[in-house]
């Protein structure tokens, strides 16, 4: 016996959150493609400053997925953003802390997925703009409506990539994409165990600014 799950995706894609998220994600993608394109006008060939303390913020769209035996199979779009700051170990390695937040409002239910952890940014060579990100930390989920809430808190890992497109010597526009996965989550309904062994996931893409 197979029971279909059609009809969920169309509902999930409704709502202003989804449209804003899609717009921001598309914008980020366009900028990223533009920056990678040969002959892109501004600062091609320039090497941005990459030392000392740094801070980065980003905003974009995100797809959240709570995976479990009774969880909806369609990822839910929403608005996602992050704040990241840290120090520079070398021109090839930055270390810092990162806070990510994804949210979505749909039919009276507000959902949040947040992560807080340590991240490392790797550049393949000292002058590279493209970088990879890896990290780990706590991941939490909350969906609430009229006093009821579904929550989870667990440990997750994150990975991603980005490209520093220099605007000034110390400021870069940074299109990014990242994936956070947090397995072994216990979902609780109003504090009582509801579903065990769930996996929280967040795929996000957008546009950020990085200051050194």
């Amino acid at each position: 016996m197979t029971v279909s799950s059609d009809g969920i995706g169309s509902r999930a894609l409704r709502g202003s959150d989804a449209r804003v998220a899609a717009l921001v994600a598309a914008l980020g993608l366009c900028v990223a493609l533009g920056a990678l394109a040969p002959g892109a006008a501004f600062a091609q060939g320039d090497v941005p400053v990459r030392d000392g303390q740094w801070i980065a913020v980003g905003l974009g769209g995100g797809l959240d997925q709570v995976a479990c035996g009774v969880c909806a199979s369609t990822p839910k779009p929403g608005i996602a953003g992050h704040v990241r700051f840290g120090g520079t170990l070398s021109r090839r390695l930055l270390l810092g802390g990162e806070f990510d937040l994804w949210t979505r409002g749909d039919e009276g239910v507000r959902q949040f997925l947040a992560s807080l952890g340590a991240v490392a940014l790797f550049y393949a060579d000292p002058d590279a703009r493209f970088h990879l990100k890896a990290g780990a930390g706590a991941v939490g989920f909350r969906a609430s409506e009229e006093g009821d809430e579904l929550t989870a808190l667990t440990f997750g890992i994150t990975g991603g990539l980005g490209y520093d497109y220099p605007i000034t010597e110390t400021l870069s526009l940074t299109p990014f994409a990242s994936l956070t996965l947090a397995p072994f989550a216990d979902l609780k309904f109003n504090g009582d165990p509801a579903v065990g062994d769930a996996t929280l996931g967040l795929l996000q893409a957008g546009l950020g600014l990085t200051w050194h």
Partner: protein
Amino acid sequence: MLDRSPPRLARLAVAAIGMGAITWACTNTPTFNNPGDVAPTGQLSAAYGTWTPGPFDTCSKEIHDSYSTVGPDGKLYPTWHPPIDPVTGCSFGHEHGADPSGSAIFDEIGPLPFGYANEQLDIYDPGMSRHEDHVGHKIEYENDVRMSFGGPADAVFEARCHLLIKLHQGTHSKDAFTNNMHEIMYHARCSDGSAVSMVFMTKIGDAGEFVDTCTGNHVHVGTPSPATSPDGGGKRIIPTRACAESLILVSAGERSNFGGLRERWEVSEQLRTTNRRSLVSINPYFNVSRPSRFFDPSLSDLTGRPMALCYETVGGLRARGGDCEEATREGEIQGIAYDDPRSPFDGVARDFDVNSLRISNADGPEVWYTDPLGGHARPDPFPGSIRQWIAVIDNTRGGADMHGPRIGRERDHGAPSVHPPN
């Protein structure tokens, strides 16, 4: 707990690929012991062969009795048939609801043996014998029903169920004015692993009474049959004569409210172990829009007829508009009896609210044997017991248990030849 989610590593891999749709496939579901698979003993159940044709019916008893199935006890039972025999074209004058073969789980469940729980009750407690008429067995099913979980859980959880349910819900006689024990068959297979196949006598409300549709008052009628019928949860909501009058007999310029005659049987039932631990809890509501009766204490059989109200005038008040005018062609046709196929009050318009399905069977086993009332569940059979199949799962989820919608409203179970008793 039966873990129907993909393996942990596989889940991670799927998510990592891009968090695409995680397709859940219900596989390896242990099957219900299809009653149709049991070798026949040659014995007839008490429910078999009880229908005989009336003056409006053109099918023979033999044709009717050919619609039969073998129950889990090997006895022959009546089962679903259409209101019109497709082979001969004759009419039975009654219907049993939706054709269960349209259910996605029919192949697994098999034909439903009407009266099996009643039969087992004879064995379990001969002093509590309860035999219900043939026409009251009503089937409804729906495939791929989207369930809800309430509040924020609806945004995260998703489950769909195939449901196949039968209740004996007679709405043509005085039976339900006092009698609260009615056979129910409840089969569900859901995408989250929730699954049950239950058959038992459900106790709907208190024995000996019902609840008036209009006032909500409990109406004490008399001794139930059997006299030892235990009280149950829920209630049977049935209109009284006063209620029916207030709805149907109206003054000039008003229209009768025929929809108000609706009966609503609210089930609130559990399968329980010998130490009264709940294994399964359900509370479906069964609605009948145009029953052919109401409670009338002034009559010897206590059974008033909406059709008769179509011809009554009380203090200038009478039925106006709707069903009565259509049936009598605005009064041109006189003398339509309650059991005439022209009566619109035939009990064919039904639906039911699925409501909650809670299973607390995380430790198993899958197969339990209960008494015919759904109690004293234990893993081994005993005289008069009924085999119940319950998935090994706890789907209560901290209170985010699943609920189903109203189903069956769009189905037309009738035929022009269907008439009370139906």
